[in-house]
């Protein structure tokens, strides 16, 4: 986890808001560094984490988390981390074998029109069966509130799932994990094109998905490149937007930061205060 981002979001492993739906989004950029932040943050906070890794293998996240000081393999062994490796699972759906008893979480690959109910069922049964925070019957360790991380939702659109189905899926995840179990949900959405004004007719799926998710979430972090172009010392900007009312009565509050990705972390700073400039 990145300490500067923790202070910006007012979170740390010991205290963070529960019941939050965090939306990470990017436009022509790569916001996956934020996924690693939240993954290591919640693992350090001793929460039970469900990770739907649909775009990368387990080893990828493991290697990066290693640099951030968290061992995913260990967490998985202890039962703190439940990892759905989408790439692996999809093989068993597309090339079914008799000996396969894996869940049908990725069943939507066969028929995208059906929607993501099976994926939600996987999440729901997994989250509620473990008790979501209660101690296991056989003396297993007691974990904190449940956290669901999804990386990422836009790939579902590419696989043929409709925007409505993805929005329903995120709604149900939020209803189960955030409202019912007081856990947190973090989802990543990626957009390709320019942000345009609405035309008539269905605009590109990812834009509509981003809007729908923004309405549902309580906190958004939007990553973009610098409007002035490529810079070696500043890799882009992050716009943080709190959508729920904060303690001091302020409603939607927005803050803009610039960031630079290092080997073992990411530094965030106010626009114009990069160490290369000062």
């Amino acid at each position, binding site marked *: 986890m990145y300490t500067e981002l923790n202070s910006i979001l007012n979170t740390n492993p010991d205290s963070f808001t529960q019941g939050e739906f965090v939306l990470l989004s990017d436009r022509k950029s790569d916001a996956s560094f934020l996924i690693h932040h939240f993954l290591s943050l919640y693992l350090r906070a001793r929460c039970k984490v469900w990770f739907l890794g649909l775009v990368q293998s387990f080893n990828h996240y493991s290697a990066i988390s290693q640099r951030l000081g968290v061992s995913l393999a260990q967490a998985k062994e202890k039962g703190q981390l439940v990892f759905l490796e989408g790439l692996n699972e999809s093989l068993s759906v597309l090339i079914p074998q008799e000996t396969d008893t894996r869940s049908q979480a990725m069943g939507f690959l066969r028929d995208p029109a059906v929607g993501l109910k099976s994926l939600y069922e996987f999440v729901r049964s997994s989250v509620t069966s473990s008790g979501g925070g209660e101690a296991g019957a056989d003396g297993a360790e007691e974990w904190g509130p449940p956290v669901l991380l999804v990386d990422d939702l836009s790939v579902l659109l590419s696989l043929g799932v409709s925007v409505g189905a993805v929005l329903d899926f995120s709604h149900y995840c939020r*209803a189960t994990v955030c*409202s019912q179990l007081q856990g947190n949900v973090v989802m990543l959405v990626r957009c390709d094109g320019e942000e345009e004004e609405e035309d008539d*007719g269905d605009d590109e799926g990812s834009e509509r998905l981003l809007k729908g998710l923004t*309405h549902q979430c309580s906190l958004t972090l939007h990553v973009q490149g610098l409007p002035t172009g490529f810079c070696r010392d500043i890799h882009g900007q992050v716009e943080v937007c709190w959508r729920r009312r904060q303690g001091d009565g302020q409603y939607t509050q927005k803050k803009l930061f610039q960031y630079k990705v290092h080997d073992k972390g990411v530094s965030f700073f106010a626009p114009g205060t990069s160490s290369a400039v000062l």
Partner: protein
Amino acid sequence: MLPELLQGIDAGGFLIIQDSTSYSGRHLLKSFINSALDREEAVHVLGFEVSEEELKDGLKGSPIQRLHFHNAYSDPLGWTDHPAFTVSQFCLDELTRLVKQTSHPKPATLVIDSLSWILRHLSPPDVCKTLHQLRKGGAVRAIIGLLHADMHQRGTVGSVCHLATSVITVVPVVKGDKAVAKITKRSKSGKVMQDEEIFSIKEDFTVIVQGKPSQLGPKLADPKEQETDPTANLTFNLRLSDTEREAKEKLALPFVFSKEKKTALLHSGPGSGRILYEPDANDDYDQEDPDDDLDV
């Protein structure tokens, strides 16, 4: 006009609050719920988008007994075995049954949070039909709906808003937590009134109207920075003294057609060639200069 709408909606009225991702209209919706509860009306909320706790958050006191939340949030599509209320139950009979479940002397106000959720799953004509039937049906006195205008095509938004008697579109103002409400109200006589007001919502959901956007215009200009003088603080001199300014203004520019040049061209000097013209019998020689009326 916003305070009047908050005071009460006419019987059979349908109010739509249109919002977008940049400013959520739910806070204004809660203000409407709050004022309806204060007027001792029963409010039925059809909650698709937020949970009961989140909606009731901030609404305190005894009036909350009159707020009936119908949970369409935990399972709106019937994915579990015991859904409380699904989106397919959004029809006149089911809604009338829901509202009549709780008896109350005053007719109830139905709040729909949100219409966008329903429009995503049911076809717009069906939704419009149900809303129209509800308005005429008499089971509810008034309907208030929240609509995310950026989630639908313009035609869909237009059709649903056409049914409404009042539409409030909220957009944020750049600074602060204020927002601009663009209000369109259609009265029963057919008169349409439009208004724009800047408002902010306090913690107890009272709405404070702070004037019109045009009033804010000049105020925004004042805090703008004073224009800096670009010729100040330079290592070289960019300013002109008075004599220099005079000389500059006297200078005749090379390609400007001034009076002196015109007379020089029109009246040729000594030694230049002269043209002698003897008209032929066929020539139509007019002594008058055809270009005389040109102001060259």
